[in-house]
C-alpha cells in the first residue's frame, strides 16, 4: 500500500488533488481511497487530504499516520504544523515553492530523506502560467507522477480531465505536463551534474 498525505489551505484544491490521484490509480486498475480530514471548511484554514493506493482492496480507514509521500501545497504550513510528521524514512516530500529548501528553512528536514526523494516544484507558477489561477494541485500531481512513479502521467492527466472538463481541464493538463517535465529534466541533470531552472 502507498499512502500519500496532502497538506494545504482551504481553497487550494487539496481535497480535489487527493481525489484526482485516486482516480488516476483507479484508471490503472488499482484500488484507491481518497478522503479529507474533515472540519468546518473555510478558505485559508489548514486542510489535509489523504490518498491510499493498493493493488488489493483497502480496508484501513484512519488518517494516514505514516505516509510514503507528503505533498505540501502551501509552504507557510511548515510554521503552523508538522506536515512531515510520520513520513517514512525513505518517503517522498514534494513542496510547492519556487524557492529553494534552504530559503524556506526546510533544508535539514529534506536532507533526512534519501537523495532524490525531496523536490521543490514551482506549481503555483505553473498554474498561473497555464491556467491563470494560483491552484497548484494539478501541477503537483504531474510532479508526483514523475518523481514517485506509482501512477503514470497519462493516468494523472486523464484524472485531471475528468475533474475539470473542457478548456480548464486542458490548461491544467499543460501545467501538470510542465511540472512532470521539470522533474524529469532535474533527474536527468542530477545524473549529468547540471543544474536546471524551472
Amino acid at each position, binding site marked *: 500500500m502507498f499512502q500519500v498525505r496532502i497538506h494545504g489551505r482551504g481553497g487550494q484544491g487539496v481535497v480535489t488533488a*487527493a*481525489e484526482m490521484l*485516486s*482516480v488516476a490509480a*483507479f*484508471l490503472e486498475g488499482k*484500488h*484507491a*481511497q*481518497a*478522503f*479529507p480530514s*474533515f472540519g*468546518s471548511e473555510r478558505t485559508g484554514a489548514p486542510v489535509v487530504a489523504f490518498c491510499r493506493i493498493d493493488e488489493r482492496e*483497502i*480496508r*484501513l*480507514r*484512519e*488518517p494516514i*499516520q505514516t505516509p510514503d509521500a507528503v505533498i505540501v501545497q502551501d509552504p507557510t504550513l511548515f510554521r503552523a*504544523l*508538522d506536515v512531515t510528521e510520520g513520513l517514512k524514512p525513505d518517503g517522498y516530500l514534494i513542496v510547492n515553492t519556487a524557492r529553494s529548501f534552504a530559503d524556506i528553512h526546510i533544508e535539514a528536514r529534506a536532507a533526512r530523506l534519501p537523495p532524490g526523494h525531496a523536490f521543490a516544484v514551482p506549481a503555483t507558477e505553473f498554474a498561473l502560467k497555464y491556467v491563470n489561477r494560483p491552484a497548484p494541485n494539478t501541477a503537483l500531481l504531474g510532479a508526483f507522477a514523475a518523481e514517485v512513479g506509482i501512477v503514470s502521467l497519462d493516468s494523472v492527466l486523464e484524472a485531471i480531465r475528468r475533474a475539470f472538463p473542457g478548456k480548464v481541464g486542458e490548461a491544467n493538463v499543460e501545467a501538470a505536463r510542465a511540472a512532470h517535465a521539470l522533474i524529469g529534466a532535474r533527474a536527468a541533470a542530477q545524473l549529468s551534474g547540471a543544474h536546471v531552472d524551472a
Partner: protein
Amino acid sequence: MLEQIEGSKAMARAIALCRPQVVCAYPITPQTHIVEGVGDLVRAGELKDCEFINVESEFAALSVAIGASAAGARAYTATASQGLLFMAEAVYNAAGLGLPIVMTLGNRAIGAPINIWNDHSDAMALRESGWIQLFAETNQEAADLHILAFRLAEELSCPTMVCVDGFILTHAVERIDIPDQASVDAYLPPYEPVQSLDPADPISIGAMVGPEAFTEVRYLQHFKHQKALDLIERLSADFAARFGRVAGGLLRSYRAEDADLVVVAMGSINGTIKDVIDEMREDGLAIGLVTLTTFRPFPARALNAALERARDVLVIDRALDVGMGGPLASHVAIALRDLPRPPRLHSAIAGLGGRPTPKTSLHRLFRQATTQPWEGPHFLDLNEAVIAREIHRRSKARRAGPTAEAILKQMEIERVARLERSAS
C-alpha cells in the same frame, strides 16, 4: 459498472436506481452530498417520476415522507445526529404506522457539545423506535444496502434506516460498482402498499389506541422484527445471487472460527480491525472478528452461534450510553447469557465524536483485553492527563465554567508546546 466515486454520490445513484417517487430532506452534515446527488439526478432528468421537495426542517422531512408513503408512493429521506432527534417523534410515528420509508443515517455524534464527526450515537438514540437498522461496513455495502432496504421495508411494511459512517464513508472517494437499472428493477419490484389513502376505498390511518389494544399493536411490531431476521438473510442471499457480492445479512465472521478472542463491531471500523487481525494472526494470536450488519432487529441467536467457541469477546462501541456504558456491549451481554459457557465480555468505547481509531491503538487494545482485562467500559485513547486536570480544576471553584471549552483550551496549550518542542 466500476467507478471511482464519492460514497455519497454512489449512494445517491443507488437510491435513484430504486425509483423513489418522493424525496424530501433537510440538509445536515454529513448527509448533504447524498441528497444533493439525488436532487441533481432528478433535475438532470435521470431520475424520472420523482418529486424532490426542499423542506424546512427534519421534522417536516420525515413528515412529508410519512404522507407520501401513506398515499402509496415510495418515499426516501436522509439525516444525521441532531436532525434525527429533531424528527424523533416522526421516527416513532412512521414505525407505529408501518410505513416502509427508507432513510439514510449519516452517523454523526449528538451534541452538546456540538460535533459534526462520526460516531453511532444517533442510531443508538432511536434504536427503540421500531425501525430496522442496518450498518454498512464499506461504501460498496452502503450503496447496496439501500437497494436491499427498499425491498425489505416494503415486504415487511416497516421503515428501515441504512447507517453509514459520516465522513469516513460518506466523503471517501473509492472504487464502487454501481449496478444497472435492469438488475435493480429485477431485485426491487414496484411498491405495493399494505395500506393506502384512496377515495375509492376510504380508511382511517392513525387512530388512538388505548390500554386494551396498545400492547398487541406493539407486539406485532416486535413480531415483524422477528420475521425480519429471516427475511434479511434471504434478501441478502438473493442480492448476492443477482449482483455477485455480499451485502447486508445479519452478521459476518472474519477468521473467528478458531479464535480465542473475537472482536464485535459495526460500521467502517471493521475494515481497520481486519488489518489488525491479520497482523496479529501473523504474530500467532488467535483473534477474529464478527461484523454486525443488522442491529435492529438484534440478531442474538446468530451472534451466539458466531461467538460460542470464543473464550473472550471484545465489543467495540462507537457510542456511549451515558451512565451505563457501551450500548452494543449491553446487547451482546444479554445475548451471551443464553450460552451454556458464555465467553468473557470486554467493552471498549472508541471513536466518539470522530476520534480516529488507528491500528496502533487497536493493537494495544486487543492485546490488553486478554493480558490486562478491565472492568466496565474502557475508553480508547482517553487523554487521562487532561481528564485529571479538568476534574481537579472543577473541584476548586463552583463557577468553573463550561467543561468543553476548558478541555479545548488545555489541549491547545499542549499542542502548541509540542509544536515548539519539535521545531527546536
